[in-house]
């Protein structure tokens, strides 16, 4: 690889990093969107259990996703208990796909760090 090729790759890497969605950079928000994309509407309690998050943290993250229009919340009462169910919106789906593609490309360009020598020997 000559110098100009290397520079081009770096520029592409920079572009990819720019294309990542700031909102989805947090693992909980990314996890919530992936789970919603995979399994349709999910209740708050289900997300909390799957992501192993506290009520307060998850509530704050979901509110950010809701404000950005990535998820929609539907509040209902079941057996007199409030149940909030979240759905990924079309915008959320598009943003997630773009973010995941960017991540994949970024991580594909930069090889994973080698495992420690002792682990390799095992």
């Amino acid at each position, binding site marked *: 690889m000559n110098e100009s090729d290397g520079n081009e790759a770096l520029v592409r890497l920079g572009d990819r990093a720019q294309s990542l969605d700031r909102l989805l950079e947090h693992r909980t928000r990314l996890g919530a969107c992936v789970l919603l994309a995979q399994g349709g509407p999910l209740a708050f309690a289900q997300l909390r259990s799957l992501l192993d998050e506290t009520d307060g943290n998850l509530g704050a993250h979901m509110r950010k996703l809701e404000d950005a229009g990535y998820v929609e919340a539907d509040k209902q009462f079941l057996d007199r*208990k409030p149940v909030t169910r979240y759905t990924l919106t079309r915008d959320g789906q598009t943003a997630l796909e773009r973010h995941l593609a960017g991540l994949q490309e970024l991580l594909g360009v930069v090889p994973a760090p080698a495992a420690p020598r002792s682990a390799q020997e095992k």
Partner: protein
Amino acid sequence: MESLSQMRDDLAFVRRAVERQQRLRRVVLPWWFAALIGVSVLLRCIGIDHSPALHRFVRENPPLVFLAPLWFLHIWRQRRKLGAGDAPADAYAPTKSDVWAFVSPWMVLLLGFGLLAIIGLRIEIPDPLQTRFVVLLAGLTAMHVGLSGATGLLYIGVALELGLLALVFLGQNTWTVFGSLLLAGLVLGALHEERASERV
């Protein structure tokens, strides 16, 4: 570089959450088990020996039939834990009487289903009508349990059961028609349940 390794960690975290979600989906298996037993018994009841291997399996493993209630109880507990509402799960912890009120009719029904299924499959009753009736009851109970897992189809299941019971004394062709209907109901019920559990 550090943020890239952070990204890898985040992706691993997301992957673990997705795996957890997929593991929870597998709880659907017992519904299929109940549906299989129900279909098997019902088909035998209408004179179609469709799967001798399955009959033999049920006949030779009666404890499995009795294990079905425990599976259902397990699923119920999982569902209750996950669908407990927005507040912390502990806030809605059911009292002992809540649990008993829910469990007791189910246990009676499920144990009855197990007993009837075993009686229907193991004991030869001389009177063919009586045999058919016992086997029918076992099949219906199994089907009821399978269908009641899919709440939306519970009423369809009950209606079909009543229709079948009303037609107990009618001819073989009617049996076949209603057997097919029931089979369709069971498959729909199991599919519905599986789709519902995919959202878990």
